[in-house]
């Protein structure tokens, strides 16, 4: 397996399975009863979710005074987790939309799963701005609607841009994902033997008939959606970064934030995809569809985006010095040497130092090594948001208002709960929907396209 011929593209699907075998391979987990392992995994994630729910219940009842947020650190775990989870989502859209436009056929095997991950991550992320407002039940005020106060939202505020960006992102990701699922629902509908499932699949498939006249519009629509999702995914984390960059806080007020945030988002998202797919391909016997080549390519993207993030870290320091603004310079020196220096160095080592191991082909293709590195990347990216938010806020302009941020148990409970929610949704997804796009994988198997069109992918 280690000797790979790089002069020619490795086959996207290994072993040239027959088309019917792909159905079988992907749909088997949906037909079988969940195993004991599944229940164990689900009970763990549900426990985490319960911890989060209890912490959230406390927060909703007693207010956000339960958190560690204070003056001057007005943003804490709430916004850190929000940015972290939105970032995780970005890999899915990148794989499904950008790699689609770039004609990367290897994306077909992992696109569906990554898209699902996007949706669940954005759902988890969307929770945080809501609970961060304190009174979740009044969140309707975030949207411009005619109300008795005759007030409108402030459209010049990045926080409102955020509402639009995240809700659009969730909607478009979901629609994109569902459009991809329609033909698979039809395939499942035609092969299932259970009447209940057949009704569900029939409703979800909308009566799809695999008609070539439909495929033509379908492919057009898929390309259009990919074309829109691509700038959308870039815009979302750009706008998230505006939450910081449009303010005048030293450490936030920088123009490098949008590209730096987008690179970081893709970086952390791919790390998450790699980590989860390692288990998915093993548990569901999808080694032929999600191959080691897929992982190698994703690890390369992690390496590239990691270098971008590292460049941004360095450039922030350079600009702080070059600007000649004392407040800027102080914030950055304080980041590296101040009371939260430990978090800064966790961030740098996890995001910049360890991913350099991916320069070695052996490590890129080693499952345990990539798992550890991807885990470190996610830890590092969480700390990146911690560093950006907490270290910039805790040293205010006036030394008299300096403070420290100490998260409470409730904060940690909600953080654990967010992982619980994400992984619970993911686990349920693996048993209810095809984790690999059946029709897309069939289209890229060797010999699936007419000889005149020799498997060449075009729209």
């Amino acid at each position, binding site marked *: 397996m280690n000797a790979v011929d790089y002069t020619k593209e490795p086959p996207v699907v290994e072993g040239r399975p027959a088309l*019917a075998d792909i159905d079988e391979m992907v749909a088997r987990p949906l037909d079988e009863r969940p195993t004991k392992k599944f229940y164990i995994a689900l009970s763990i994630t549900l426990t985490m979710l319960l911890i989060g729910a209890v912490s959230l219940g406390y927060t909703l009842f007693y207010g956000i005074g339960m958190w560690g947020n204070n003056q001057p650190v007005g943003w804490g775990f709430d916004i850190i987790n929000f940015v972290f989870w939105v970032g995780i989502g970005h890999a899915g859209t990148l794989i499904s939309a950008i790699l689609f436009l770039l004609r990367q056929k290897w994306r077909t095997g992992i696109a569906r799963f990554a898209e699902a991950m996007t949706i669940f991550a954005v759902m988890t992320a969307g929770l945080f701005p809501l609970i961060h407002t304190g009174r979740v*039940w009044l969140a309707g005020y975030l949207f411009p609607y005619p109300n008795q106060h005759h007030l409108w939202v402030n*459209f010049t505020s990045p926080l409102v841009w955020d509402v639009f960006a995240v809700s659009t992102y969730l909607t478009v990701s979901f629609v994109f994902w569902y459009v991809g699922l329609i*033909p698979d629902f039809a395939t499942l509908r035609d092969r299932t033997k259970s009447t209940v499932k057949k009704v569900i699949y029939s*409703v979800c498939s909308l009566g799809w008939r695999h008609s*070539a006249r439909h495929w033509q519009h379908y492919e057009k629509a898929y390309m259009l959606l990919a074309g829109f999702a691509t700038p959308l995914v870039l815009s979302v984390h750009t706008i998230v970064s505006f939450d910081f960059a449009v303010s005048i806080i030293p450490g936030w007020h920088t123009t490098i934030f949008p590209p730096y945030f987008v690179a970081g988002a893709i970086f952390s998202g791919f790390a998450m995809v790699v980590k989860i797919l390692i288990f998915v391909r093993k548990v569901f016997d999808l080694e032929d569809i999600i191959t080691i080549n897929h992982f190698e390519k994703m690890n390369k993207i992690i390496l590239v985006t990691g270098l971008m993030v590292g460049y941004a870290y360095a450039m922030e320091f350079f600009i702080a010095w070059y600007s000649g603004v004392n407040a800027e310079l102080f914030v950055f020196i304080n980041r590296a040497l101040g009371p939260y220096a430990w978090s800064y160095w966790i961030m740098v080592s996890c995001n910049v130092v360890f991913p350099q191991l991916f320069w070695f082909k052996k490590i890129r293709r080693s499952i345990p090594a990539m798992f550890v590195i991807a885990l470190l990347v996610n830890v590092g990216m969480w700390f990146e948001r911690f560093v950006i938010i907490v270290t910039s806020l805790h040293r205010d302009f006036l030394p008299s208002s300096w403070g420290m941020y100490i998260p409470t148990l409730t904060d940690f409970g909600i953080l654990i709960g967010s992982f619980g929610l994400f992984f619970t949704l993911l686990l349920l997804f693996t048993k209810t929907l095809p984790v690999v796009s059946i029709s897309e994988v069939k289209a890229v198997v060797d010999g699936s396209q*007419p000889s005149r069109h020799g498997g060449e992918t075009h729209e």
Partner: protein
Amino acid sequence: MSKILYGYTALFDSPDGIMAAAQKTADDGFTKFDVHTPYPVHGMDKAMKVKPSKLGFVTLFFGLLGGALAMLFMYWTMAVDYPMVIGGKPLFPLPAFGPVTFEVIVLAATLSTVAAMIALFFYLPQNNHPLHDTDYMKNVSSDKYGLCIEAGDPLFDEKKVKTFLDAAGGKNITPIYNPDPVKYPLLQPRFLSVLLVVALSVSGLTYFTLNKLMYMPPFDWMSEQEKLTPQRTYRLFEDGYGMRMPVQGTVARGFMPYPYRDQPVLEEEGLANPLLATEEVLTLGKNKYNTFCSPCHGDHGDGDSRLRGYFPNPPSLHTPRAREWSDGQIYHVLTVGQNVMASYEPYTTREERWAIVHYIRALQRAKNASDADIQLVRSDNNAR
């Protein structure tokens, strides 16, 4: 009951086979036929001679429409309906409207594209299509490639189509029949009871949420706060009132109290009406007079009040004594009261009282008009 034929289907094993068959079908002049493949086969649209998809126009139209509406809406809310200067930006800050405009373009374009594709281009959802639940559909769903020539085609002839499909290399050539129409009667007890349960639960839940839940803790903690509000009792104060009166002699900022309050009759001569008798002031005065003065003094100041008999009758405002009063004296009466007439200071502003004075002057002049006044009114009417 004889079944109505929908069409003939044939299965093919390879993408090359279906490609050739589709090409041949289109070349032979068939128009109502379809190819069914488990995944999009490249080049099939050309072989079938179908026109390029027009879906992009939907996307373009709704994308532009969404963006334009978003921009217009933001302009209207922030510059027209509730204009507010934020951060020194103009009322229409184009760059700051960029992100939301972009997001709405994407949202409108994608949702309209998908909705149009499913509903207008595919006529979906359609789960009662004749092809559903056939072996043919089960095969093309999985690993076969199918061709279906519909009976609605002008060239359709059962025998000819069969031989044509056979010649094209098709296998499993089978006829497909239209399904029997199914009726769903509306007035079924089961359906109606489901409807009732849904209606009751939705309305009940809405009622509970809006009228009960929002007044329970913690949802009412916005209105029920642990702070002193004007209507609350507070035991720390002797009188128990939460609301405190201002200290004696407190004067509002920028406001001089009326200095002649203690005089029963105004002795000061210098108190002149600060307002000009413009039409606007007279209208204000008329409104206030009709509201506050006319119940006793009558609509025209004759003392013919609507309250006659229930209340001591006030004198006419047209007596020589009243007409000789200065503006200041009338204003003084309005402000501090006279005899049984109470002070109208709490109910009217200073300007309103001066406007009433102007209106009383107008009434007095009208009731006792000189010839010159009548001439003036006549010439004024003629000029109009």
